[in-house]
Structure formats: structure tokens, C-alpha cells
């Protein structure tokens, strides 16, 4: 392919590079700014003109974060919730995806269409009644509400099914001939073969859970049960009342963003696959 080959010459290329690098810098700016600001004291944060590097470097913001607010607790809560949800989602989606891909059973197509149709229900439609339901179940302010309704998303099942279609049916039949139970076939043959797809779905779900805000905001009341995004949002509210300052919240923001970015740097390919899951056709 010789057309559109990079020549590295001319004004046009220089301009394109400026746009490319400029956008990359803009993308990274909030991370760099929150990182350097997390070592500044309040007078420097509100200094004019703004200073990028901290002048009197100190760790006070981080110390406050772990002593004055429940930051460590929120981090553990977020992590535990994300791990639990991800494991259950991967389990239930792979089970259903496998059934839709490799079994023939009465009403299969009807049930499959029904499942796909469920993707059309926007969260706003069920937001109010689901809240009422959680109230009736006494699940408000509990983790049941954060996990149980979300463990079998139709989107995940659809993706699992698309992947499982490509698994060799002969292999499954051979295992059946050997007297393997259906559940054992799923557990010991299908799951290991589907590992790449499981990983992709797991990353997608983990990130969704780690970053989710609206539903936890609706359900949780107890500060100690909060997740990271909720905790940080509360800290921003505390800025106005003077309980927390901006340095501390920058430290919190940086620590909340860090795990995902680090994970991404180590697992780029899987992340990109996970987050572009929907565009199956490519």
C-alpha cells in the first residue's frame, strides 16, 4: 500500500503531528495535574499563576486521605465489589452463552430474541421501580442491591455466544462419549477454551463496576459502605464545608484513577478488545 504512506515532509504532516501530540497531552493532563497537585499545599494549589511542580513537596494530603476520611475502606469496598461482580458475570454469561451456542432446545430462538430485546430497556425506565423494589426487599444500603441485579447482563451473554459458536462441536461430543457430565464439559472443556473471551468480558465488567456511580449513589447511605467514586464525590462536597481540601481530593482522584491505568499498561491488548467489544463487526 503505497498511497497514504508517511512521508514526514511538508506543512501538512507537521500540523497533523501537532494535533496528535496535542490531543495526547490533553488526554494525560488531568492525570499529571492531579499527581503533582497531590503533593502541594493549599496555598500553592490556589497560587496564581498556576505552578505545575510542587514547591514544598509533602505527603500530608495522602496521610489525611487515609486518616481523615475512609479512603482505604472505599478502595477495599470498590475492589471487593468489582471482583465479586466480575466473577459472577463471567460465570453466568459464559453458561448462558454456551447454551445458546452449542445446544438445540425447544424455544431456543424465541428465548434468544427475547434476551436480545432486553438490551432495549434503558436504565432510566427501571431506575425508579428498581429502587422501589430494593426498598421492599430491604436491600437499600446493602451490597445485595449492587451485585445481584447485574450478574447476568444480556450484552455479555450475546458476546459469549458469539465466541462459543466457534468452539469445535466434535470435541464436546467426544467428551460426552467418554461419559463426561454436561456440567463437567462446561467447566473443564468449554471454559478453558473460552479463556480469551472470558478475560475480555472480565475486563469490561471490572471496569464498569469500578467506575459505576449512579446506582451506588441511589442505594448506599452509610459512608463506610461507599465505593471510591461515591467517596470522592462526597469529598468534593466536603470541600465547601472545609472538612477536606483540594490537595487531598487531588490525591484521592489520582489514587482512584491509578489502578485502571496501570492495569491497562500491562494488558493493553485485552483492554482494547474488552472495550471495543460491542463493535463486533469491526
Amino acid at each position, binding site marked *: 500500500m503505497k*498511497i497514504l504512506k508517511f512521508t514526514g515532509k511538508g506543512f501538512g504532516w507537521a500540523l497533523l503531528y501537532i494535533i496528535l501530540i496535542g490531543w495526547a497531552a490533553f488526554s494525560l493532563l488531568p492525570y499529571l495535574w492531579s499527581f503533582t497537585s497531590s503533593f502541594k499545599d493549599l496555598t500553592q494549589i490556589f497560587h496564581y499563576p498556576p505552578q505545575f511542580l510542587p514547591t514544598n513537596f509533602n505527603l500530608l494530603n495522602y496521610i489525611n486521605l487515609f486518616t481523615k476520611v475512609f479512603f482505604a475502606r472505599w478502595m477495599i469496598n470498590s475492589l471487593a465489589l468489582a471482583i465479586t461482580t466480575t466473577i459472577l458475570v463471567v460465570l453466568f454469561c459464559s453458561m448462558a452463552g454456551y447454551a445458546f451456542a452449542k445446544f438445540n432446545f425447544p424455544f431456543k430462538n424465541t428465548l434468544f430474541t427475547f434476551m436480545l430485546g432486553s438490551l432495549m430497556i434503558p436504565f432510566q425506565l427501571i431506575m425508579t421501580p428498581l429502587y422501589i423494589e430494593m426498598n421492599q426487599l430491604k436491600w437499600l444500603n446493602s451490597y445485595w442491591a449492587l451485585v445481584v441485579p447485574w450478574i447476568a447482563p444480556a450484552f455479555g451473554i450475546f458476546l459469549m455466544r458469539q465466541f462459543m459458536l466457534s468452539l469445535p462441536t466434535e470435541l464436546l461430543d467426544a467428551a460426552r462419549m467418554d461419559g463426561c457430565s454436561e456440567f463437567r464439559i462446561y467447566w473443564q472443556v468449554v471454559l478453558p477454551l473460552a479463556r480469551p473471551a472470558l478475560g475480555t468480558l472480565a475486563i469490561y465488567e471490572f471496569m464498569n463496576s469500578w*467506575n459505576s456511580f449512579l446506582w451506588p449513589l441511589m442505594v448506599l447511605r452509610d459512608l463506610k459502605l461507599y465505593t471510591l467514586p461515591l467517596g*470522592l464525590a462526597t469529598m468534593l462536597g466536603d470541600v465547601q464545608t472545609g472538612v477536606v481540601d483540594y490537595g487531598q481530593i487531588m490525591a484521592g482522584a489520582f489514587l482512584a484513577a491509578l489502578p485502571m491505568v496501570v492495569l491497562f499498561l500491562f494488558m493493553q491488548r485485552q483492554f482494547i478488545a474488552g472495550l471495543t467489544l460491542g463493535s463486533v463487526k469491526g
Partner: protein
Amino acid sequence: MLQEKKMGWHFEQKMVPYLFIAPFFIIFIIFFLGPAIFAFFVSFQNWNLLGAMKFIGFKNYVLLFQDKTFAQAVVNTLYYIVSGIVLQWPLSLLLATVLNQKNMPGKKFLTPIYFIPILTSSVVVAIVFVLFLDNKYGLFNAPLISLGLAPINWLGDTDLSKYAVILLLVWRYTGYNMILFLASMQNIPAELYEAAWVDGASKFDTWWNITIPMLRPAIAYVMILGIIGGSQIFDEPWILTNRGGPADSSLSVGNFLYRTSIMNIRMGYGSAIGTVLFVGIFIITIFQMRFFGLFSREEQNA
């Protein structure tokens, strides 16, 4: 004995797929379909969760269509959706096109960077942007102040607050859309370009006549994502402009719904909002799928 084993196998074989799909259907019926139907029912009631429900007919819907705050929230939300098309798309298409060139130095290094914003919770980023856009100390206002110009009051001005939210949305989703476009561009067969090149087509011709048409499924996907995601925007205005302020000038429909159902405990009214949104999004999605020919016979054979 043998026969018994065979019959057992047969029974298991028949039941297994239903057992495997059961979790989805149980969860779906209890937590999605049930509530969805219940929402329709509650939308005709007046209910504050504590007392008894009171049937009031279409009154919630009538009130909703006269509600100025709802109208404002719908307009704001449309701003957010349209900004996705007007600002994110050209930029992400441009970035994708440039990164799709052969032998671009720095391509491997730059591409992952564009992806990073989508990884971070919108709450976290909004908090950082609060500091960027601050009227007195904001980083983005510093150049203006140093030039002796008046700082832009992004977060405190009723005309500008929407654009502050839009800036944050553009920051967060442009790179992600770019990756989707880029992935799609890389799947375009090289022969198509070679043929065009032999025919003496210019760079722009090949881009316009090959790249863009071949991107149709990706464009449709990004558009549907943009509309569904955009119509549900909650976090950005909630955090960045302090619950959709000032004076509801950046309030999204999602914010309005949260305020109605959860803060003011108006279950009937909240359900009516949800129902209206569902119908709206449903119609737009169907229209879009028709427009892009998704799920049509022609596309399936292609």
C-alpha cells in the same frame, strides 16, 4: 442398568441448556422486566413510597409535558448528544485517519494514550476538571488572565455550564471513538486502496470514497452508543457543575430523574419520566437501525 444410564443422560441433555440460561431469565424477570412493567403502572399513580398509592390517570404525563425543568433537561441532554456528533466525531475520525497511515513514527506510543481517558471514572475526572475550570484559580483560565483578559466563568455562568460538561465529554470519549474507528479502518482490505491508487485517485478521494463508506457499521455503532449513552448522562453534570447547576442550566435528564425519584421521592412522576424516555429512545434507535440498514437482510449477507 445400561438403559437407565442412557435415559438419565437423555434427561440431563434436555435440561442442561435451560439450567444454563436460567440465571439470566430469573434475574431479568425479577429485576428488569418486572420493574419495567411496574413502572408503567406506577406512572399513573401519585406515590411517595410511604403512604398508599393514589390513581391519578394521565396527570403525571400532563404535568411532565408542562414541566419547564424537564424541558430544560431534555434540551441540555440533546446538547450533550449533538456535541458528541459535532465535536467528537470529526476529531476522532481525523485522529484515526492519521494514525492509520503506514510507517507513522510514534504510532505505537501514541495510540494507547488516547485510550486512557475512558478507563477513568467520570466522577474522578470531573473532580479534576472542577479545578481546571475554576473561575479564579483554574488552569484553563490562567492564560486568559495573564493576557489581561477576563477569565471564563465555565462553572458559574448559566450560558456556559453546558459547554463545560461538553468539554469533559469530548475529553473522555474522543479517544475511545477514535479507537473504534481505527479498528474498523484496519479491517478495510488493502486491495481496495491499491485498485484506487492504480486508477490514480487522490488521497482525499480514497478516503472519501473507500474509507468512509467502509466505516458505515462503525459509524452506526458509535452513533447508537452515543445516543444511548448520551441520553443517560448523569455523572458529568452532577459532579462538574454541582448537580446540573447553576440554576439547572446543565441539568441532564438523568439528573432530573434522580432528583424526582430519589431526592423528592415522587415515584409516580419518576416512573412517567422513565416511560417517556424509554419510548423516545426506542423510536430513535429503531429509526437509526433502519437508516443504517443494520439487521437488514442485505447486511447479513454482506
